[in-house]
């Protein structure tokens, strides 16, 4: 695909240009990290957080279509981009007074019941607070309707990361030509394979017609093309993402996941920060130090810091805060500093910074496995469910393989696991190297961390679910009132029901409930993964209506 050199669009009425390969967010970030959104209940300023199309920090309205993620959107000539959910403007929002007025939270469960005559008014106010934007315009929808893209293939691979590409390359070498679906727009071609870039697999139901049947996987291409993939075999190499962290004011602009930091600085783009505090000490933290060390001003870790990271940090002159709690972030429209405290009653220290990078925990993208009905097992170390796989990556569902970090293999094993599955699929015609770095499971470091953190008295906002502005106090109230288990607490508080589909709140939610309820996370519950994997435009799904098989027996 040849891109036009520079696309002109308008942002809040001002003309701007996006360079080739630049997303809308890349282009806006050239002027610094923008506050693009407001949180739903308290209208707190929000900014991009994840950089990979999952959080609600960069939702904008493009040509009358709401909830467009600036970090995933490639602007076109003539696009009109505006921000929503703030009045009169995104910089000055009168509704932000709710954050001050409702110090103890807006209690929609028990509040607003009286007086009865005011009910219609309460409904109006609360309905206005919900949501991030106005409904779409008719024109925006008309621009999205198109024909479906239906593919029938032997092998489909979801994800063109390291493991997905390794599997594809090995398959091609053995004479099998897979179809690859990759959510990112920038995906290099792979000779011998068909790559659908900017295409998100969103629903993999159990296969139709028994073990000889095919998978019918629903997907969509940006912005809204319906894609139906009929495949005999599916290799899911969906990877992992950086988790969020709970502390006071954990939703402030400038708090970024490691994913966001890497995404925004890809291909040598300058980072939108100068002095970032880095939280974490594993492989991910080391990658960030290697890539962005000049812009990292301190490393804070919940536990010990391994020697390799210590020496890398020392070389770069970065101070270290091992075994520390991250307590608070200061700053309203942009983080100014964070307060950390060494564990076991240490004195708090304030670290000035203009960003906080979260790189303490990577979570698998396991939705497709749940949807397809694969057997999952709990790994305490990460605090997440992974598909149970054999040596070659075969899940319990015949024809579905799991490789790379979505299956708990890491680093070099990503390539190894890709080769193994290719070998299995082609009857052993691909040579495989031993899997050298499947990560062993271990105890969960965060559990003890949160236990200690939450023991101290708390002030300010602790946002357990930023998408829906659910407060930690509300989750605790549910437990106090006798509502047990993640499924019930989800329904009681709304935790996990927002636009990120729980990615940035349910994993911590499981740990917190496990602590509060005094039972292991596996008893607190299974997080039911409801399709689709990512919000999928109705227009894209509608286009597939004639192509998808009817339910069996109907």
């Amino acid at each position: 695909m040849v891109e036009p050199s520079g696309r002109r669009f308008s942002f809040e009425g001002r003309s701007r240009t996006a360079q080739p390969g630049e997303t809308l967010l890349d282009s806006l970030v050239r002027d610094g990290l923008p506050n693009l959104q407001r949180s739903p209940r308290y209208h707190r300023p929000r900014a991009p957080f994840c950089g990979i199309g999952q959080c609600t920090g960069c939702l904008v309205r493009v040509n009358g279509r709401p909830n467009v993620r600036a970090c995933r959107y490639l602007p076109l000539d003539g696009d009109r981009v505006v921000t929503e959910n703030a009045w009169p403007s995104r910089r000055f929002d009168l509704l932000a007074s709710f954050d001050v007025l409702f110090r103890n939270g807006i209690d929609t469960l028990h509040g607003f019941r009286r007086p009865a005559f005011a009910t219609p008014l309460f409904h109006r106010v609360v309905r206005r607070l919900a949501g991030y934007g106005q409904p779409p315009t008719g024109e925006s929808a008309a621009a999205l309707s198109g024909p479906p893209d239906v593919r029938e293939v032997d092998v489909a691979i979801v994800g063109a990361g390291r493991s997905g590409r390794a599997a594809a390359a090995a398959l091609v070498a053995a004479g099998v030509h897979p179809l690859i679906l990759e959510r990112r727009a920038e995906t290099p071609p792979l000779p011998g394979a068909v790559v659908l870039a900017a295409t998100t697999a969103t629903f993999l139901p159990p296969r139709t017609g028994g073990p000889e049947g095919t998978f019918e996987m629903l997907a969509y291409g940006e912005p809204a093309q319906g894609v139906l993939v009929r495949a005999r075999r599916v290799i899911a190499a969906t990877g992992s993402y950086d988790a969020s962290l709970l502390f006071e004011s954990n939703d402030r602009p400038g708090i970024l996941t490691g994913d966001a930091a890497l995404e925004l600085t890809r291909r040598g783009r300058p980072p939108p920060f100068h002095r970032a505090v880095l939280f974490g000490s594993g492989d991910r933290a080391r990658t960030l130090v290697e890539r962005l060390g000049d812009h990292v001003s301190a490393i804070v870790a919940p536990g010990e810091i391994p020697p390799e990271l210590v020496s890398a940090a020392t070389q770069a002159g970065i101070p270290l805060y091992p075994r520390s709690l991250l307590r608070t972030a200061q700053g309203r429209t942009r983080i100014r500093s964070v307060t950390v405290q060494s564990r076991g009653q240490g004195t708090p220290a304030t670290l000035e910074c203009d960003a906080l990078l979260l790189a303490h925990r990577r979570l698998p993208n396991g939705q497709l496995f749940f949807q397809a009905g694969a057997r999952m097992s709990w790994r305490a170390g990460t605090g997440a469910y992974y598909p149970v796989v054999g040596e070659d990556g075969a899940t319990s569902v015949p024809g579905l393989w799991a490789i790379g970090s979505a299956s708990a293999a890491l680093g070099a094993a990503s390539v190894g696991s890709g080769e193994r599955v290719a070998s299995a699929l082609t009857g052993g015609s691909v040579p495989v190297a031993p899997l050298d770095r499947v990560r062993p499971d271990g105890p969960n470091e965060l559990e003890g961390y949160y236990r200690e953190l939450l023991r101290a008295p708390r002030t300010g906002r602790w946002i357990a679910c930023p998408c829906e502005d659910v407060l930690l106090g509300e989750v605790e109230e549910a437990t106090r009132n006798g509502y047990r288990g993640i499924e019930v607490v989800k329904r009681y508080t709304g935790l996990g029901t927002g636009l990120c589909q729980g990615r940035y709140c349910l994993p911590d939610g499981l740990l917190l409930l496990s602590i509060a309820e005094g039972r292991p996370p596996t008893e607190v519950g299974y997080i039911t993964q409801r399709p689709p994997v990512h919000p999928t435009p109705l227009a894209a799904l509608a286009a597939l209506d004639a192509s998808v098989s009817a339910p069996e027996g109907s």
Partner: protein
Amino acid sequence: MNGPRRSEYAVAIVGAGIIGLFTAYHLARAGVGPILVLDRGFLSSGASGRNGGGVRQQWETRATVRLARESVASYRHFGRDFGYNIWFRQSGYLFLAETNADLDRLRPVHELVRSEGLHSRVLDPHGVGRLVPGIAPGAVVGGTYLATDGILYPFPAVWGMYEAARGLGVEMALGLEAVGVATRDGRVNGLRTSHGSIATPKVVNAAGGWSGDFSGAAGLEVPNRATRHEILATEPMKPFLDPMVVRPSDGLYFSQTMRGEIVGGLTLRHPPGADRGMASSAAFLPRMASALSRLIPRLGALGVLRAWSGFYDDTPDGLPIIGEDPRLPGFYHANGFGGHGFMLAPAATRRVARTVLGERTDLDPSVFGPGRFTGPAPPSSVERLQLG
């Protein structure tokens, strides 16, 4: 899960959905005790935690209109009575007619509803368009509308009833399964559970989509059939749609909740009994997306956030089963509510409680009684309006 705390109860209620909880509440209010409510799942794991929250009073059968109207009155005061805000919004139910024949089928309902003193209206396309901004031109020839119908947020209703019943001393055993009943001299005298048996002269079957199974376990053949129904929620947005919209021709229904999401579904025939799982099917998302975005084209640019499914507990005549089973005294039915258990719960369970107390109710046994399927005469009413 531990077993029940006592060995003997006055009443045991199987199922802690909205029906079981309301029934327990009414019984406890009437002074009955001790009462055990047991549920093998978590609170709200059944249909009561998976529905669209629609509350309508437009029905084909007079008795149902009355039950619904009484329920609306109860839900209006739910917040005052039970401490939880269910966000009951009386912003109407709109039935769409695509053809004049559709409209003619809606007229008798309209007449019946009016004869009950409810101000149903017949709307022309213009009137429909005012209620559904952005509806495709030519999509309808009109519709019927009742402004006092509405939607509620189901979860707080479950919490409110759970706490109200508990507050009156009802014992709630979550994670406990009922596996059968014990009988003596042809009467119920106990309940067998996954954690031992209890003695009780009265068992209420409020097991929703699994009520047929539980009746079967008690040796009673019943016509209840569980059908899986799928539903989805879109990304939330600012308010734009007030009423619940229903299209009888394909069973499409949707509304915009207080959280801003469009929540709705349509009828997609799943093979009966084939799959008791709660997963979504590949066919539903495209079908529903197509129906919604054809009717209101602007919604095409909105994302689907999540889809799920639940079970209707269907009966052959589309009406619930309420009353003591003539074949097994002490076994009470409070099931067969199809896709309407939430909206009928407050009023219907008042009758359930009365029958459990041995009192007469205003419900005609030939319309609601369990004996109507096994007696010599066929059931005397049929409710075909089987929609959200």
